[in-house]
Structures are given as C-alpha cells and as structure tokens.
C-alpha cells in the first residue's frame, strides 16, 4: 500500500491522529536537518501543531472523507504559502511572506494534507542540480558528494530520504522528472494547464507546471488528482474537472509504446542503457507492443528551451526591482534606476543573472528574429513530432529520463552549457506542454536511474495506470550492472 493511502486511511479510521502525523513529520525534519541534507528551508513546530488542530477540526466539521487526511507534503519554495516564507531560494526574496496562497496548496490543505516544510531549490528554479540555491546546495540523500538534481532538488531529496511521502515541485523544463530520476523517486509533470499556476512564482510562463513527487506512483497520482482542475485565478488553466484516476494496470496489453531513437544515443551511460533495456523487456513481457519511432526535431529541444526559457525569465523577473518585493539595495543615495540595478545586481545569484542577460539579449532589437522567433517556430515543430507519433498509434513514449545518473557536486557549475545538457531528454515534453513522468527502474553502482514516459495532452490517467504496471514489474532498487 502506498504511504499516502496508508496515512490517510489511518487518520480517517482513527488508528492515528493528525497530531501524531505532524509530530512524526517534525521528528523526521529534525533528523534530516541534523544529517545536513539542507533540503528543507522553512518549517516550524508551532506551525505544524496549528495544522494538526486545523485538520482535526476539518475532519469533525465535514461529512466528506478527507482524501489526504494527515499527509505531510514538502512544498517547493517558489509555491506561495501563507504561514511560511516563499523565497524561491533567493536573497532578493529572503523572508518574503506571500499575501495569498497557491491554489494547489489550498486544495491540498482542504483535502486534509499539511505543508510540512518549504523545500530548497535552485534559485528561481534555474538549475539542474540545486547547487544554485542562495541558501546552500542540497545533498543527494544517498551520496552526499553528489547532487539531487534540480531545480526541485529539495523536494526530491525529502521524498527520497523518507521525510515526506510526497512533495510539490515545479517544472519549467524537467525540474521534477530529472531530480526524481537522480534520487530514485517518482516525479510526475502534468499537461500544461492541468494544475493551476496561481501562486507559483512565474519563471517561464508558457512552460511552468506545478508537479508532484511521490515514493510510489500511487502517492503522486493521489496528490495530482487533488491539486488538478480548473481555477478561475489562472487564465491558462484548462477548463476541466480534477483528474480522475484510472485503475492501476497490472499488464500493458493493448498499449503501443514508442521508443524514440533520438533518446537512445550510442554514448548513453551504460548503467542507464542497461536499466532501460530491462524496462523495455518488461514492457514486452507485460504485453505491450514496442515500436521504434523518430522525433526528428528532438535534437533541437535544449537549444530551443534555452532561448525560450531565459526570454520568459527576463520578462518575469523584471518585477523584482527592490520596490515591490523583498530586498532593497542602494539606500536613498541613488536615483531610481540605480536602486533597481543595485538591488537586482546583488539580490540575484549567478545563474539567475546569466539567464536574465541571455534572455534580454535574445529579445533585444536585431536578435529577436534570429533567436526568439526562430525558437518559437522550432517549438511548433518539436510539438508536431510528438503529436504525429501519437496520431500514428503510439500510446506512450518511453525514454531514459536523464543521460547519466546523479553527477558530483561542482562538476558542472563552471560550465552552464554542460549543466543545461542534463535536461536533454526532459526539455521536449515541457516545450510541447505534454504530461510525462519519471519512474525508478534500477541502480548503477548504487545510483538511481529513471525511465521517462511521455503521454498525449491530458492523458495523465493512462500514463499513471501504465506506470503502475511498470512499477510492480521492476524493482527500482535492483543493481543493473
């Protein structure tokens, strides 16, 4: 039984209480902090205690069973919460308390869950290793000298370390699937628009999706179902009811799974290749038809992403100017532009500054056609490749999530492009707005390896049901070589 189901059933039946759940979360957070994981930013025993009281009152006052009663959730620090700061792991928002709450958090709390802590992340979600947090890097839970992936590395590490069974992260270009793969947990990115972005600090507005980590597929699926559904506060939220989950599959009969050749290069890490080969064999054994396919524009995903993403980031982060939010530098001795420049120059860290500069460059007069507009056309072609594959009878695409297992801290911080290439297999689904997930399918020298499934838009239920069959058939902790 999944942890979320176990906890919520135990609380609903009275075998345990919400107060015991919050006390247990407190104990686990203390242990994680003592271990130096650095995955949790803000949390407090007082707040956890008040949440226990709130859940117990809610349980008494409603006739409906709370689907996530007593479930602790770590929430990435770019998702607005009322009682804990929302800093985006940036000095520029140090101590910032949001005046409103993200819709996803409101829905979790209404379902009986509680925010155990805010989770560390790459500053403003820009990074693939959680080394760019202004509050220190997050350790990989099993290999302290390695990274947990990013940018939602704190959320991934907390789930992998058993501190919370589920966590919210955010995806702009793989920031949940990639750390899920590195940490050996499940990471699910929904279709763009499936989950409201209200209260998610905007980074790449055409890409951003609140996404979910879980110990198991069922954990993530239950949380995704609760947070999904139309929200009038987000004009890009799809006018659909909450995700209705399908019965988990025990086989894959009747499904056609596509293997895009561009995602299985000759130089793929041998451990990743061995784990994926095993997963493909399992797909066949479970009754799926497996077909090779081609996504010819996939090779342009990362360069396209690293034009669109900085362009949107440069525009979105213009609002952090020292006047409207948080930190202010320059004092009263400078003029207004001087105040903006001083605040932003010292408030943002190195990767955020780089992205703002690149984004401003690719949008500037003389370069917008060459870079930004060409990238937006390429994004159409990348998306068409996916829709063509699905129209040709492919139900799900199966790929590695990452080209290698978790790398060592410091390996890629000096080379931004090397860091960007960690996203090579995850950027495409983000550009196309498609649902995708990462599932642990083995370990290489102890390091977790993830398999990615990509589904047609709004086909999360089919994707999650199939993932459950893979999960039951494959021991994600098995050493592959």
């Amino acid at each position, binding site marked *: 039984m999944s942890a979320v189901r176990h906890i919520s059933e135990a609380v609903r039946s009275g075998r345990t209480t919400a107060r015991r759940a919050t006390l247990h979360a407190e104990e686990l957070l203390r242990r994680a902090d003592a271990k130096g994981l650095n995955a949790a930013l803000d949390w407090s025993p007082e707040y956890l205690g008040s949440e226990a009281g709130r859940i117990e009152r809610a349980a008494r006052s409603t006739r409906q069973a709370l689907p996530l009663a007593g479930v602790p959730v770590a929430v990435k620090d770019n998702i607005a919460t009322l009682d804990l700061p929302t800093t985006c792991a940036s000095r520029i928002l140090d101590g910032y308390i949001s005046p409103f709450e993200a819709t996803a958090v409101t829905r979790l709390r209404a379902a009986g869950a509680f925010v155990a802590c805010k989770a560390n992340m790459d500053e403003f979600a820009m990074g693939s290793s959680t080394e760019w947090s202004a509050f220190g890097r997050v350790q990989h839970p099993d290999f302290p000298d390695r990274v947990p992936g990013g940018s939602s590395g704190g959320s991934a590490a907390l789930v992998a370390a058993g501190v919370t069974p589920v966590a919210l992260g955010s995806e702009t270009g793989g920031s949940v699937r990639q750390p899920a793969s590195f940490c050996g947990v499940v990471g699910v990115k929904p279709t763009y628009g499936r989950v409201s972005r209200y209260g998610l600090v905007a980074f790449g507005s055409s890409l951003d999706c609140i996404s979910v980590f879980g110990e198991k597929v069922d954990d993530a699926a239950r949380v995704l179902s609760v947070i999904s559904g139309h929200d009038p506060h987000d*004009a890009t939220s799809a006018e659909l009811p909450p995700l209705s989950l399908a019965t988990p599959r025990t086989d894959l009969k009747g499904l056609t799974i596509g293997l895009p050749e561009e995602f299985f290069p000759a130089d793929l890490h041998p451990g990743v290749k061995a784990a994926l080969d095993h997963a493909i064999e399992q797909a066949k054994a479970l009754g799926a038809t497996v077909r090779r396919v081609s996504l010819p524009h996939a090779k342009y995903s990362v360069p396209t992403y*690293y034009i669109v993403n900085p362009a949107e980031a440069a525009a979105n982060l213009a609002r952090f100017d020292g006047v409207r939010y948080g930190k202010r530098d320059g004092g*009263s001795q400078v003029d207004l532009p001087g105040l903006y420049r001083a605040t932003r120059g010292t408030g943002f860290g190195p990767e955020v500054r780089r992205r703002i500069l690149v984004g401003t460059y690719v949008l500037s007069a003389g370069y917008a056609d060459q*870079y930004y507009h060409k*990238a937006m056309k*390429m994004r159409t072609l990348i998306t068409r490749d996916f829709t063509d594959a699905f129209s040709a009878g492919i139900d799900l695409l199966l790929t590695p999530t990452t080209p290698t297992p978790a790398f060592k801290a410091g390996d890629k911080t000096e080379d931004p492009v090397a860091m960007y290439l960690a996203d090579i297999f995850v950027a495409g689904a983000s550009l196309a707005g498609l649902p995708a997930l990462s599932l642990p399918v083995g370990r290489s020298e102890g390091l977790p390896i993830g398999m990615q499934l990509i589904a047609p838009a709004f086909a999360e239920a089919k994707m999650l049901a199939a993932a459950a069959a893979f999960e039951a058939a494959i021991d994600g902790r098995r050493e592959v070589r």
Partner: protein
Amino acid sequence: MSIGRDDVLHVARLAELKVAEHEVAPLVKQLNGIVDFVAQLAAADVPVDTPEFTVGPVRASLRADVVAPEPLARSAERMAPDWQDGFYVVPRLGHQEIES
C-alpha cells in the same frame, strides 16, 4: 565570439542589472558559450510558414467582469510594515526632488 564587453554592458543596462567590473570578463565568456550553443538553431531547417508556438487553450477563459473582494488572506493593514490613515508608509525611493 559573438558577444563582446560592450554587448554585456548594454544588455545589463537594458535588464537593470548592476554588473561589477570584475564580473564582465567571465560573463563575456559564459554568455558566448551559451549563445554559441543555442545558435545551432540557426542551422536548423524551419519552413518559413511555420507558425510560432502558442500554449494552452486557443481562447483564454475569462472570469465574469464583476468586482470581487481581493483574495488576500490577511488585510492590507496587517501586511504593511507601516500604515497610516489608510495608506502604506513606504521608504523613500531614491533622491527625487520634492517640490515645495
């Protein structure tokens, strides 16, 4: 190298980002690395009539045009560091001249 020192300073000015002198040379190197990498898109064959990508529903959903209470969990007064006579009291912004 497609980006020079002047480009970095120009873009930093456009982005309202202070860049210290010792940061300029590393930024020139890093930005060239990034822009050279993304420039591989220039070699890609993209038919001229390809539309630019749009995300989400074709027509954005709109709320009814009615005035509703601000969805704030706390009152404006409670959030204000300083509050006087129904107004936020804010720190002075820069050194604008005050006409008397």
